[in-house]
């Protein structure tokens, strides 16, 4: 399994897009940091720091693209046979790809987090302190950390669905669209969703509601709208992940190539 994960990482490292996205991420974060420094009234420095200078949203975008192609590229390039007719089991091949994606997402978040601290030191050294209280009770630094960790859960809820769709359709296009819509739709449809959940309470268990987990971690009062406790949202997210990845696993094992 270690060998297989290493092979997946080898492919990622030699893809230009891996490095290009990392650079794009840092450039965009810098741009937002500079804008916030020059126009603190338009973009609040503390808020944007907590969101890793919008880095997290871009990571979601890049990870959706990466996850949708990690399986479909093997079908596209015809390399799937070469992967499968070795001594390894099919399940191992699939899980090694998931693990590579987990490591890749951790790399992205760590990169954005560290770079956010650097930007804070350079551009906002006198503007605010990391130890200042932000929002309810935590310091800015702790809030940023919680946002990233809970965001990681929401990210993987989306990615598990993207991995499933890419596997079902053998194509990345459909998976990318659904992933992006799924993640960003929550902001658009949340008001509609809240009304719907009020009317039919069982709807609170739908996966889109689970996407509120990161928001509720930061603003616990959201529970009056999601109708679920923060822990219920976490467990719900994990259950959906297991379901999506489980279906992926059984589809992949049965596939004729």
């Amino acid at each position, binding site marked *: 399994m270690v060998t297989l994960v290493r092979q997946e990482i080898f492919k990622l490292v*030699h893809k230009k897009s891996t490095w290009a996205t990392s650079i794009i991420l840092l450039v965009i974060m810098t741009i937002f940091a500079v804008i916030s420094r020059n126009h603190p009234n338009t973009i609040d420095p503390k808020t944007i720091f907590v969101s890793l200078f919008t880095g997290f949203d871009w990571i979601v975008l890049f990870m959706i693209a990466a996850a949708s192609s990690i399986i479909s590229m093997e079908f596209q*390039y015809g390399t799937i046979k070469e992967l*499968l007719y070795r*001594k390894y089991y099919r399940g191992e091949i699939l899980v090694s790809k998931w693990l590579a994606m987990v490591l890749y997402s951790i790399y992205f978040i760590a990169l954005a987090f560290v770079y956010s601290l650097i930007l804070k030191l350079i551009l906002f050294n006198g503007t605010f302190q990391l130890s200042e209280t932000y929002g309810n009770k935590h310091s800015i630094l702790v809030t940023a950390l919680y946002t990233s960790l809970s965001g990681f859960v929401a990210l993987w809820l989306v990615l598990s669905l993207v991995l499933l769709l890419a596997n079902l359709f053998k194509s990345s296009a459909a998976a990318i669209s659904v992933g992006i819509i799924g993640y960003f739709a929550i902001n658009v449809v949340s008001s509609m969703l809240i009304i719907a959940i009020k009317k039919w309470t069982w709807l609170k268990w739908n996966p889109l509601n689970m996407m509120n987990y990161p928001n509720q971690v930061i603003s616990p009062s959201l529970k009056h709208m999601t109708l679920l406790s923060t822990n219920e949202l976490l467990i719900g997210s994990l259950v959906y992940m297991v379901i999506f990845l489980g279906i992926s696993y059984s589809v992949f094992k049965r596939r*004729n190539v």
Partner: protein
Amino acid sequence: MADTILDVEGLTKNFGSKKVLKNVSFSVEKGHIVGLVGPNGAGKSTIMKAILGLFNYPSGKITLDGQPVSQTSHQALEKVGALIEYPGIYPFLSGLQHLELFSNDGVSKQQIMDVVDKMKMGSYIKRKAKTYSLGMKQKLGIALALVNHPALIILDEPMNGLDPQANKDLRTIILDLAKQGTTFLISSHILSELEKLIDDLIVIDKGQIVYRGDMATLESGSTRSMVLQTSDDAKAKDILSQNGYKLIDSDHVSVVEDETTKMADIIKLLSTNNIEIEDVKHVHSDLETSLLDLLKNDKVKEG
């Protein structure tokens, strides 16, 4: 029977309601080069994919060096290298990176370069594979099958897209490796190429094995003949048959050759009858002819 490395027994496979393999059984001996031949859609690639554990089969048994192979048991495939249909290439990796990616832990950089040298890929091995020509990609696919020094190498249409020189090089490599004990299962449409390589032949048609045996047996079943072009073909035919020669029914004067047939006798016989000989050709029915006969007859022979 010498050591068998691969044993396929009663293999059956359906795609939907279509039967693609019907009770296919054969075995491959260690160190032999075995040709798998048949028309398009006969089931050659399907057999190879089954051996490589790429799909489930409803009935049958495949064992590799004594270990069973199926979609769910892949352990034995450690000893196998393969190229199926067309080589899968990552456009963002160089040829060398492909070989590094798929080589086992025990394979050194030097061993990888040995394969590169043997395949004469040195001049472009560090270039991105997306810039490769069809033949270069094919060579890379073959190199990938060889890189881990497997005991059994399965090549599906390996000569696809190779130029004559590369073709000859590949033949040398295969024959060398076979001498060292590597077993090959090779499918090809280019029968004249296979003929120069293989020890044993498996002919498959419509999912069934129609011939299984060594090359010598198939060749001995074929006939050799002498085709003459004369000033008066009709008369020549009469004279030859009156003198006890066996003729093949055709437009030309075609005499069946055996050990006793002497060209000098025929020339003498015809010239004494005032028939001029304009041209003489020896025709030896090759693998291709034997094979086409076999497929035309459509009879199932077990060798």
